[in-house]
Protein backbone atom coordinates (compact mmCIF):
# COMPACT_ATOMS: atom_id res chain seq x y z
CA UNK A 1 0.00 0.00 0.00
CA UNK A 2 1.20 3.52 -0.73
CA UNK A 3 -0.02 6.93 0.26
CA UNK A 4 -1.59 8.78 -2.67
CA UNK A 5 -3.01 12.22 -1.94
CA UNK A 6 -3.83 11.01 1.56
CA UNK A 7 -5.38 7.71 0.48
CA UNK A 8 -3.93 4.29 1.21
CA UNK A 9 -3.84 2.77 -2.25
CA UNK A 10 -2.91 -0.70 -3.42
CA UNK A 11 -0.03 -0.54 -5.91
CA UNK A 12 -0.58 -4.09 -7.01
CA UNK A 13 -2.44 -7.23 -6.07
CA UNK A 14 -1.07 -10.10 -8.14
CA UNK A 15 1.62 -8.21 -10.03
CA UNK A 16 1.43 -5.34 -12.47
CA UNK A 17 2.09 -7.40 -15.59
CA UNK A 18 -0.60 -9.98 -14.81
CA UNK A 19 -3.09 -7.23 -13.92
CA UNK A 20 -2.32 -5.20 -17.05
CA UNK A 21 -2.75 -8.24 -19.31
CA UNK A 22 -5.97 -9.23 -17.54
CA UNK A 23 -7.51 -5.88 -18.49
CA UNK A 24 -6.44 -6.23 -22.13
CA UNK A 25 -7.67 -9.82 -22.47
CA UNK A 26 -10.43 -10.30 -19.87
CA UNK A 27 -11.25 -7.71 -17.23
CA UNK A 28 -9.81 -5.83 -14.28
CA UNK A 29 -11.38 -4.19 -11.24
CA UNK A 30 -9.98 -0.94 -9.83
CA UNK A 31 -10.86 0.84 -6.61
CA UNK A 32 -10.54 4.48 -7.62
CA UNK A 33 -12.51 5.91 -4.73
CA UNK A 34 -9.78 8.51 -4.24
CA UNK A 35 -11.14 10.45 -7.23
CA UNK A 36 -12.98 13.59 -6.14
CA UNK A 37 -16.53 14.58 -7.02
CA UNK A 38 -17.74 18.17 -7.23
CA UNK A 39 -21.36 18.97 -7.96
CA UNK A 40 -22.44 22.24 -9.54
CA UNK A 41 -26.15 22.95 -9.29
CA UNK A 42 -28.68 25.70 -9.57
CA UNK A 43 -30.58 27.49 -12.32
CA UNK A 44 -27.27 28.84 -13.71
CA UNK A 45 -25.34 25.56 -13.35
CA UNK A 46 -24.77 25.23 -17.10
CA UNK A 47 -23.44 28.79 -17.35
CA UNK A 48 -21.06 28.05 -14.48
CA UNK A 49 -19.77 24.84 -16.08
CA UNK A 50 -19.42 26.57 -19.44
CA UNK A 51 -17.33 29.34 -17.90
CA UNK A 52 -15.08 26.90 -16.01
CA UNK A 53 -14.42 24.35 -18.75
CA UNK A 54 -13.11 24.40 -22.32
CA UNK A 55 -15.41 21.75 -23.83
CA UNK A 56 -19.04 22.54 -24.70
CA UNK A 57 -21.27 21.35 -21.86
CA UNK A 58 -24.36 22.73 -23.60
CA UNK A 59 -24.18 19.70 -25.90
CA UNK A 60 -24.82 17.39 -22.95
CA UNK A 61 -28.29 15.97 -22.38
CA UNK A 62 -29.06 14.31 -19.05
CA UNK A 63 -27.30 10.93 -19.07
CA UNK A 64 -24.37 12.17 -21.13
CA UNK A 65 -20.83 12.84 -19.99
CA UNK A 66 -17.82 14.58 -21.47
CA UNK A 67 -14.06 14.73 -21.00
CA UNK A 68 -13.01 18.33 -20.48
CA UNK A 69 -10.77 20.56 -18.37
CA UNK A 70 -10.90 23.40 -15.90
CA UNK A 71 -8.63 25.90 -17.64
CA UNK A 72 -6.57 28.79 -16.33
CA UNK A 73 -6.47 32.25 -17.89
CA UNK A 74 -3.36 31.06 -19.71
CA UNK A 75 -5.21 28.14 -21.25
CA UNK A 76 -3.47 25.59 -19.03
CA UNK A 77 -4.93 22.92 -16.79
CA UNK A 78 -6.31 23.48 -13.34
CA UNK A 79 -7.40 19.87 -13.83
CA UNK A 80 -8.71 17.49 -16.45
CA UNK A 81 -12.16 16.23 -15.47
CA UNK A 82 -15.26 14.38 -16.58
CA UNK A 83 -18.55 16.30 -16.46
CA UNK A 84 -21.75 14.29 -16.05
CA UNK A 85 -25.03 16.02 -16.88
CA UNK A 86 -27.50 14.75 -14.26
CA UNK A 87 -30.31 17.13 -15.17
CA UNK A 88 -30.69 20.61 -16.60
CA UNK A 89 -29.53 22.30 -13.39
CA UNK A 90 -27.19 19.67 -12.01
CA UNK A 91 -23.68 18.67 -13.14
CA UNK A 92 -21.54 16.08 -11.39
CA UNK A 93 -17.81 16.49 -12.02
CA UNK A 94 -15.18 13.84 -11.39
CA UNK A 95 -11.81 15.42 -10.57
CA UNK A 96 -8.32 14.11 -9.80
CA UNK A 97 -7.75 13.09 -6.18
CA UNK A 98 -4.67 15.22 -5.64
CA UNK A 99 -6.54 18.25 -7.04
CA UNK A 100 -9.84 17.94 -5.20
CA UNK A 101 -9.26 20.74 -2.69
CA UNK A 102 -7.64 23.00 -5.29
CA UNK A 103 -10.41 22.37 -7.80
CA UNK A 104 -13.16 23.00 -5.31
CA UNK A 105 -11.59 26.32 -4.30
CA UNK A 106 -11.14 27.22 -7.98
CA UNK A 107 -14.72 26.36 -8.85
CA UNK A 108 -16.11 28.32 -5.92
CA UNK A 109 -14.09 31.41 -6.74
CA UNK A 110 -15.25 31.35 -10.38
CA UNK A 111 -18.92 30.55 -9.93
CA UNK A 112 -21.64 32.66 -11.48
CA UNK A 113 -24.65 33.88 -9.54
CA UNK A 114 -27.40 31.26 -9.55
CA UNK A 115 -25.04 28.29 -9.20
CA UNK A 116 -23.52 26.63 -6.19
CA UNK A 117 -20.75 24.06 -5.79
CA UNK A 118 -20.69 21.18 -3.35
CA UNK A 119 -17.72 18.92 -2.65
CA UNK A 120 -19.28 15.45 -2.54
CA UNK A 121 -16.01 13.51 -2.60
CA UNK A 122 -16.51 11.87 0.78
CA UNK A 123 -19.97 10.57 -0.13
CA UNK A 124 -18.91 8.53 -3.14
CA UNK A 125 -16.68 5.61 -3.87
CA UNK A 126 -15.73 4.79 -7.43
CA UNK A 127 -15.05 1.33 -8.82
CA UNK A 128 -13.89 0.82 -12.39
CA UNK A 129 -14.61 -2.41 -14.25
CA UNK A 130 -12.51 -2.46 -17.42
CA UNK A 131 -11.76 -4.91 -20.19
CA UNK A 132 -13.41 -6.86 -23.01
CA UNK A 133 -15.41 -8.95 -20.50
CA UNK A 134 -16.63 -5.93 -18.51
CA UNK A 135 -19.99 -5.87 -20.25
CA UNK A 136 -20.62 -9.60 -19.78
CA UNK A 137 -19.77 -9.32 -16.08
CA UNK A 138 -21.97 -6.33 -15.41
CA UNK A 139 -25.01 -7.23 -17.50
CA UNK A 140 -26.24 -9.86 -15.04
CA UNK A 141 -26.18 -7.61 -11.97
CA UNK A 142 -26.87 -4.11 -13.31
CA UNK A 143 -30.55 -3.27 -13.11
CA UNK A 144 -30.43 -1.33 -16.36
CA UNK A 145 -30.13 -1.98 -20.07
CA UNK A 146 -26.40 -1.41 -20.15
CA UNK A 147 -26.10 -2.67 -23.72
CA UNK A 148 -27.63 0.66 -24.70
CA UNK A 149 -24.96 2.64 -22.87
CA UNK A 150 -22.71 4.24 -25.45
CA UNK A 151 -19.24 5.56 -24.55
CA UNK A 152 -19.56 8.65 -22.36
CA UNK A 153 -23.14 8.00 -21.38
CA UNK A 154 -24.39 6.86 -18.00
CA UNK A 155 -27.41 5.66 -16.14
CA UNK A 156 -28.39 5.76 -12.47
CA UNK A 157 -29.37 2.24 -11.52
CA UNK A 158 -28.63 -0.32 -8.82
CA UNK A 159 -25.82 -2.83 -9.27
CA UNK A 160 -26.59 -5.95 -7.23
CA UNK A 161 -29.02 -3.81 -5.27
CA UNK A 162 -26.49 -1.05 -4.55
CA UNK A 163 -27.53 2.39 -5.85
CA UNK A 164 -24.97 3.41 -8.46
CA UNK A 165 -24.19 5.74 -11.29
CA UNK A 166 -22.95 3.49 -14.10
CA UNK A 167 -20.91 5.28 -16.75
CA UNK A 168 -19.39 3.76 -19.87
CA UNK A 169 -16.05 5.44 -19.33
CA UNK A 170 -12.59 4.45 -18.23
CA UNK A 171 -8.89 5.12 -18.07
CA UNK A 172 -7.40 2.00 -19.62
CA UNK A 173 -8.09 2.12 -23.35
CA UNK A 174 -10.57 -0.76 -23.04
CA UNK A 175 -14.32 -0.96 -23.03
CA UNK A 176 -15.66 -0.74 -19.51
CA UNK A 177 -17.62 0.99 -16.82
CA UNK A 178 -16.96 3.33 -13.96
CA UNK A 179 -19.42 3.05 -11.10
CA UNK A 180 -20.03 5.60 -8.40
CA UNK A 181 -21.78 4.33 -5.29
CA UNK A 182 -22.23 5.46 -1.69
CA UNK A 183 -18.91 5.08 0.17
CA UNK A 184 -20.55 2.84 2.76
CA UNK A 185 -21.45 0.32 0.02
CA UNK A 186 -18.12 0.28 -1.78
CA UNK A 187 -16.73 -2.87 -0.17
CA UNK A 188 -19.94 -4.75 -0.91
CA UNK A 189 -19.93 -3.64 -4.55
CA UNK A 190 -16.25 -4.57 -4.88
CA UNK A 191 -16.75 -8.05 -3.41
CA UNK A 192 -19.87 -8.68 -5.48
CA UNK A 193 -18.16 -7.70 -8.72
CA UNK A 194 -15.09 -9.81 -7.96
CA UNK A 195 -17.31 -12.81 -7.26
CA UNK A 196 -19.47 -12.41 -10.36
CA UNK A 197 -16.41 -11.66 -12.48
CA UNK A 198 -14.22 -14.55 -11.35
CA UNK A 199 -15.46 -16.98 -14.04
CA UNK A 200 -14.69 -14.30 -16.64
CA UNK A 201 -11.09 -13.90 -15.49
CA UNK A 202 -11.70 -10.67 -13.57
CA UNK A 203 -8.57 -9.58 -11.70
CA UNK A 204 -8.27 -6.90 -9.01
CA UNK A 205 -5.85 -4.21 -10.23
CA UNK A 206 -3.76 -1.64 -8.40
CA UNK A 207 -2.41 1.80 -9.17
CA UNK A 208 0.63 0.44 -11.02
CA UNK A 209 -1.46 -1.30 -13.68
CA UNK A 210 -3.75 1.71 -13.90
CA UNK A 211 -0.70 3.77 -14.83
CA UNK A 212 0.76 1.35 -17.40
CA UNK A 213 -2.66 0.84 -19.01
CA UNK A 214 -3.40 4.53 -19.36
CA UNK A 215 0.07 5.22 -20.72
CA UNK A 216 -0.20 2.40 -23.27
CA UNK A 217 -3.44 4.09 -24.40
CA UNK A 218 -1.80 7.57 -24.24
CA UNK A 219 -4.28 8.94 -21.72
CA UNK A 220 -3.04 11.94 -19.76
CA UNK A 221 -1.98 11.87 -16.14
CA UNK A 222 -2.42 15.19 -14.39
CA UNK A 223 0.81 16.27 -12.71
CA UNK A 224 2.89 14.34 -15.25
CA UNK A 225 1.69 15.06 -18.78
CA UNK A 226 -0.48 18.08 -18.10
CA UNK A 227 -0.50 20.73 -15.38
CA UNK A 228 -0.81 24.46 -14.83
CA UNK A 229 2.12 25.14 -17.19
CA UNK A 230 0.88 23.17 -20.22
CA UNK A 231 -1.94 24.41 -22.40
CA UNK A 232 -4.77 22.36 -23.84
CA UNK A 233 -3.36 22.81 -27.34
CA UNK A 234 0.20 21.94 -26.32
CA UNK A 235 -1.17 18.70 -24.87
CA UNK A 236 -2.87 17.99 -28.19
CA UNK A 237 -6.30 17.79 -26.58
CA UNK A 238 -7.84 19.83 -29.38
CA UNK A 239 -10.96 17.66 -29.32
CA UNK A 240 -11.96 19.03 -25.90
CA UNK A 241 -11.46 22.65 -26.97
CA UNK A 242 -14.60 24.37 -28.28
CA UNK A 243 -13.62 27.96 -28.96
CA UNK A 244 -16.96 28.74 -30.59
CA UNK A 245 -19.08 27.89 -27.53
CA UNK A 246 -18.83 31.35 -25.99
CA UNK A 247 -16.52 32.80 -23.39
CA UNK A 248 -14.71 30.69 -20.79
CA UNK A 249 -11.64 31.09 -18.62
CA UNK A 250 -8.58 30.89 -20.87
CA UNK A 251 -10.48 31.22 -24.13
CA UNK A 252 -8.61 34.31 -25.29
CA UNK A 253 -5.17 32.76 -24.82
CA UNK A 254 -6.20 29.50 -26.45
CA UNK A 255 -7.79 31.27 -29.43
CA UNK A 256 -4.56 33.18 -29.95
CA UNK A 257 -2.49 30.02 -29.57
CA UNK A 258 -4.68 28.22 -32.08
CA UNK A 259 -4.00 31.07 -34.51
CA UNK A 260 -0.25 31.34 -34.02
CA UNK A 261 0.55 27.73 -33.15
CA UNK A 262 2.08 26.35 -29.97
CA UNK A 263 5.82 26.48 -29.28
CA UNK A 264 5.80 22.84 -28.19
CA UNK A 265 3.58 19.80 -28.36
CA UNK A 266 3.12 16.62 -26.41
CA UNK A 267 4.19 13.53 -28.35
CA UNK A 268 4.12 9.80 -27.82
CA UNK A 269 7.42 8.00 -28.28
CA UNK A 270 9.02 4.59 -28.29
CA UNK A 271 12.56 3.78 -27.25
CA UNK A 272 14.69 2.76 -30.22
CA UNK A 273 17.69 1.73 -28.14
CA UNK A 274 17.44 -0.44 -25.02
CA UNK A 275 16.32 1.41 -21.94
CA UNK A 276 13.22 2.45 -20.07
CA UNK A 277 12.34 6.16 -20.08
CA UNK A 278 10.94 7.38 -16.76
CA UNK A 279 9.09 10.50 -15.62
CA UNK A 280 11.55 13.36 -15.27
CA UNK A 281 14.42 11.99 -17.38
CA UNK A 282 15.89 14.78 -19.57
CA UNK A 283 15.19 14.77 -23.29
CA UNK A 284 17.71 16.07 -25.83
CA UNK A 285 17.11 17.07 -29.41
CA UNK A 286 20.22 17.34 -31.61
CA UNK A 287 22.33 17.22 -28.48
CA UNK A 288 20.53 20.09 -26.79
CA UNK A 289 18.27 19.68 -23.79
CA UNK A 290 14.69 20.02 -25.00
CA UNK A 291 12.56 19.04 -22.00
CA UNK A 292 11.89 15.95 -19.98
CA UNK A 293 9.93 12.74 -20.12
CA UNK A 294 6.45 13.42 -18.73
CA UNK A 295 5.52 9.72 -18.49
CA UNK A 296 7.51 6.64 -19.37
CA UNK A 297 7.49 2.96 -18.66
CA UNK A 298 7.58 -0.56 -20.06
CA UNK A 299 4.08 -1.43 -21.25
CA UNK A 300 3.29 -5.11 -20.73
CA UNK A 301 0.78 -5.70 -23.54
CA UNK A 302 2.81 -4.19 -26.38
CA UNK A 303 6.04 -5.19 -24.59
CA UNK A 304 7.66 -1.91 -25.52
CA UNK A 305 9.41 0.90 -23.70
CA UNK A 306 7.26 3.94 -24.37
CA UNK A 307 6.55 7.39 -23.06
CA UNK A 308 5.35 10.91 -23.65
CA UNK A 309 7.25 14.19 -23.74
CA UNK A 310 6.89 17.77 -24.98
CA UNK A 311 9.03 18.61 -28.00
CA UNK A 312 9.46 21.92 -29.85
CA UNK A 313 6.63 21.94 -32.41
CA UNK A 314 8.84 21.61 -35.52
CA UNK A 315 10.18 18.33 -34.07
CA UNK A 316 6.83 17.05 -32.83
CA UNK A 317 6.18 14.83 -35.83
CA UNK A 318 6.07 11.08 -36.37
CA UNK A 319 9.44 9.54 -37.06
CA UNK A 320 11.45 12.33 -35.40
CA UNK A 321 14.30 10.88 -33.36
CA UNK A 322 15.67 12.33 -30.15
CA UNK A 323 17.51 11.17 -27.05
CA UNK A 324 16.34 10.33 -23.58
CA UNK A 325 19.09 10.69 -20.98
CA UNK A 326 18.93 7.46 -18.99
CA UNK A 327 21.32 7.63 -16.04
CA UNK A 328 23.43 10.10 -17.99
CA UNK A 329 23.51 8.03 -21.18
CA UNK A 330 21.93 9.29 -24.43
CA UNK A 331 19.43 6.66 -25.47
CA UNK A 332 17.64 6.93 -28.80
CA UNK A 333 13.87 7.35 -28.97
CA UNK A 334 11.42 8.03 -31.81
CA UNK A 335 8.15 9.92 -32.01
CA UNK A 336 5.27 7.58 -32.91
CA UNK A 337 1.60 7.96 -33.63
CA UNK A 338 -0.57 8.31 -30.53
CA UNK A 339 -1.98 6.18 -28.97
CA UNK A 340 0.45 3.30 -28.60
CA UNK A 341 -2.49 0.98 -28.08
CA UNK A 342 -5.97 1.22 -29.55
CA UNK A 343 -8.42 -1.55 -28.90
CA UNK A 344 -9.97 -3.39 -31.80
CA UNK A 345 -13.69 -2.91 -32.23
CA UNK A 346 -15.43 -5.86 -30.62
CA UNK A 347 -19.04 -6.89 -30.63
CA UNK A 348 -19.78 -6.16 -26.98
CA UNK A 349 -23.26 -5.26 -25.95
CA UNK A 350 -24.49 -3.66 -29.12
CA UNK A 351 -21.53 -1.36 -29.50
CA UNK A 352 -19.29 -1.03 -32.49
Amino acid sequence: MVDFAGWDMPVQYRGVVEEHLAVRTHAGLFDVSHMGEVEIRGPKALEAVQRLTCNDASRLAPGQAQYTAFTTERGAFVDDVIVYCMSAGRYFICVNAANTAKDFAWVRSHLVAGAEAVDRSAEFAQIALQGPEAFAILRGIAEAEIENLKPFTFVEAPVAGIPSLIARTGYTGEDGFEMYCPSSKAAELWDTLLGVGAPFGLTPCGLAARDTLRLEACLMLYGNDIDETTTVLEAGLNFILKLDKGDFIGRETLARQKETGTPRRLVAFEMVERGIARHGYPVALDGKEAGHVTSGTFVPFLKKNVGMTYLPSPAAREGQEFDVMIRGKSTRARVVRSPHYKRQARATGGRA
Partner: protein
Amino acid sequence: MYPDNLRYTKEHEWVSVKETTGTIGVTHFAQKELGDVVFVELPEVGRKIKSGDEFGTIESVKAVSEVYAPVSGEVLEVNKSLVDHPEIVNEDPYGRGWILKVRLDSPGEVASLMDAAAYQTFIAGQGH
Protein backbone atom coordinates in the same frame (compact mmCIF):
# COMPACT_ATOMS: atom_id res chain seq x y z
CA MET B 1 14.06 -19.04 -0.09
CA TYR B 2 17.59 -18.35 1.17
CA PRO B 3 20.00 -21.19 0.37
CA ASP B 4 22.62 -22.00 3.00
CA ASN B 5 25.48 -22.20 0.52
CA LEU B 6 25.22 -18.51 -0.44
CA ARG B 7 26.41 -15.29 1.18
CA TYR B 8 24.25 -12.18 1.27
CA THR B 9 24.52 -8.38 1.36
CA LYS B 10 22.35 -5.69 2.93
CA GLU B 11 21.57 -4.52 -0.61
CA HIS B 12 20.02 -7.95 -1.29
CA GLU B 13 22.61 -9.48 -3.58
CA TRP B 14 23.86 -13.04 -3.14
CA VAL B 15 27.18 -14.57 -4.07
CA SER B 16 28.27 -18.17 -4.36
CA VAL B 17 31.94 -19.07 -4.46
CA LYS B 18 33.55 -21.96 -6.30
CA GLU B 19 37.31 -21.84 -6.01
CA THR B 20 38.20 -18.39 -7.37
CA THR B 21 34.93 -17.73 -9.22
CA GLY B 22 32.06 -15.88 -7.62
CA THR B 23 28.53 -15.99 -9.08
CA ILE B 24 26.32 -13.02 -8.22
CA GLY B 25 22.59 -12.43 -8.33
CA VAL B 26 19.80 -10.79 -6.36
CA THR B 27 17.81 -12.48 -3.62
CA HIS B 28 14.28 -13.79 -3.51
CA PHE B 29 13.47 -10.85 -1.24
CA ALA B 30 14.82 -8.37 -3.83
CA GLN B 31 12.90 -9.86 -6.75
CA LYS B 32 9.72 -9.92 -4.71
CA GLU B 33 10.12 -6.29 -3.62
CA LEU B 34 10.86 -5.19 -7.18
CA GLY B 35 7.95 -7.02 -8.74
CA ASP B 36 7.97 -7.94 -12.42
CA VAL B 37 11.51 -7.37 -13.70
CA VAL B 38 11.47 -5.98 -17.23
CA PHE B 39 15.01 -4.74 -17.81
CA VAL B 40 18.49 -5.73 -16.68
CA GLU B 41 21.53 -3.64 -17.53
CA LEU B 42 24.71 -5.73 -17.39
CA PRO B 43 28.37 -4.66 -17.11
CA GLU B 44 30.93 -5.52 -19.77
CA VAL B 45 33.05 -8.62 -19.51
CA GLY B 46 36.55 -7.70 -18.37
CA ARG B 47 35.42 -4.82 -16.20
CA LYS B 48 36.93 -4.64 -12.71
CA ILE B 49 34.40 -4.23 -9.95
CA LYS B 50 35.03 -3.44 -6.32
CA SER B 51 32.81 -4.59 -3.50
CA GLY B 52 30.20 -1.96 -2.83
CA ASP B 53 30.36 -0.56 -6.38
CA GLU B 54 27.26 -0.28 -8.45
CA PHE B 55 27.69 -2.55 -11.45
CA GLY B 56 24.29 -2.71 -13.09
CA THR B 57 20.63 -1.84 -12.96
CA ILE B 58 17.50 -3.90 -12.58
CA GLU B 59 14.20 -2.30 -13.48
CA SER B 60 10.74 -3.54 -12.75
CA VAL B 61 7.68 -1.90 -14.28
CA LYS B 62 7.55 0.65 -11.48
CA ALA B 63 11.05 0.85 -10.02
CA VAL B 64 14.69 1.32 -10.93
CA SER B 65 17.15 -0.45 -8.66
CA GLU B 66 20.94 -0.43 -8.71
CA VAL B 67 22.87 -3.63 -8.15
CA TYR B 68 26.02 -3.50 -6.03
CA ALA B 69 29.02 -5.80 -6.14
CA PRO B 70 29.17 -7.99 -3.03
CA VAL B 71 32.82 -8.82 -3.74
CA SER B 72 35.75 -7.46 -5.78
CA GLY B 73 37.00 -9.00 -8.97
CA GLU B 74 36.98 -9.03 -12.74
CA VAL B 75 33.81 -9.77 -14.69
CA LEU B 76 34.24 -13.13 -16.45
CA GLU B 77 30.76 -13.67 -17.82
CA VAL B 78 27.35 -12.02 -17.78
CA ASN B 79 23.99 -13.77 -18.09
CA LYS B 80 22.96 -12.70 -21.57
CA SER B 81 19.65 -14.53 -21.39
CA LEU B 82 18.45 -11.76 -19.05
CA VAL B 83 18.61 -9.26 -21.93
CA ASP B 84 15.60 -10.80 -23.65
CA HIS B 85 14.12 -12.57 -20.64
CA PRO B 86 14.59 -10.37 -17.59
CA GLU B 87 11.63 -12.12 -15.93
CA ILE B 88 13.98 -15.05 -15.17
CA VAL B 89 15.20 -12.94 -12.24
CA ASN B 90 11.72 -13.34 -10.72
CA GLU B 91 11.29 -16.95 -11.69
CA ASP B 92 14.61 -18.37 -10.55
CA PRO B 93 16.74 -15.78 -8.72
CA TYR B 94 19.36 -18.27 -7.48
CA GLY B 95 19.54 -20.43 -10.59
CA ARG B 96 18.88 -19.31 -14.15
CA GLY B 97 18.50 -15.75 -12.87
CA TRP B 98 22.18 -15.33 -11.94
CA ILE B 99 23.55 -12.01 -13.18
CA LEU B 100 27.31 -12.29 -13.52
CA LYS B 101 30.43 -14.27 -12.67
CA VAL B 102 33.65 -12.68 -11.44
CA ARG B 103 37.19 -13.86 -10.88
CA LEU B 104 37.56 -13.04 -7.21
CA ASP B 105 40.42 -10.79 -6.13
CA SER B 106 40.32 -12.50 -2.76
CA PRO B 107 38.04 -15.48 -2.21
CA GLY B 108 38.20 -14.88 1.54
CA GLU B 109 36.28 -11.63 1.10
CA VAL B 110 32.92 -13.43 1.25
CA ALA B 111 33.52 -14.28 4.90
CA SER B 112 32.56 -10.72 5.78
CA LEU B 113 29.11 -11.16 4.18
CA MET B 114 26.00 -12.48 5.91
CA ASP B 115 25.13 -16.13 5.92
CA ALA B 116 21.55 -17.26 5.25
CA ALA B 117 20.50 -17.08 8.90
CA ALA B 118 21.94 -13.59 9.40
CA TYR B 119 20.34 -12.37 6.17
CA GLN B 120 16.94 -13.68 7.18
CA THR B 121 17.25 -11.92 10.52
CA PHE B 122 18.27 -8.79 8.63
CA ILE B 123 15.26 -8.75 6.30
CA ALA B 124 12.91 -9.63 9.15
CA GLY B 125 14.18 -6.45 10.82
CA GLN B 126 13.18 -4.46 7.74
CA GLY B 127 9.56 -4.93 8.61
CA HIS B 128 8.72 -7.70 6.18
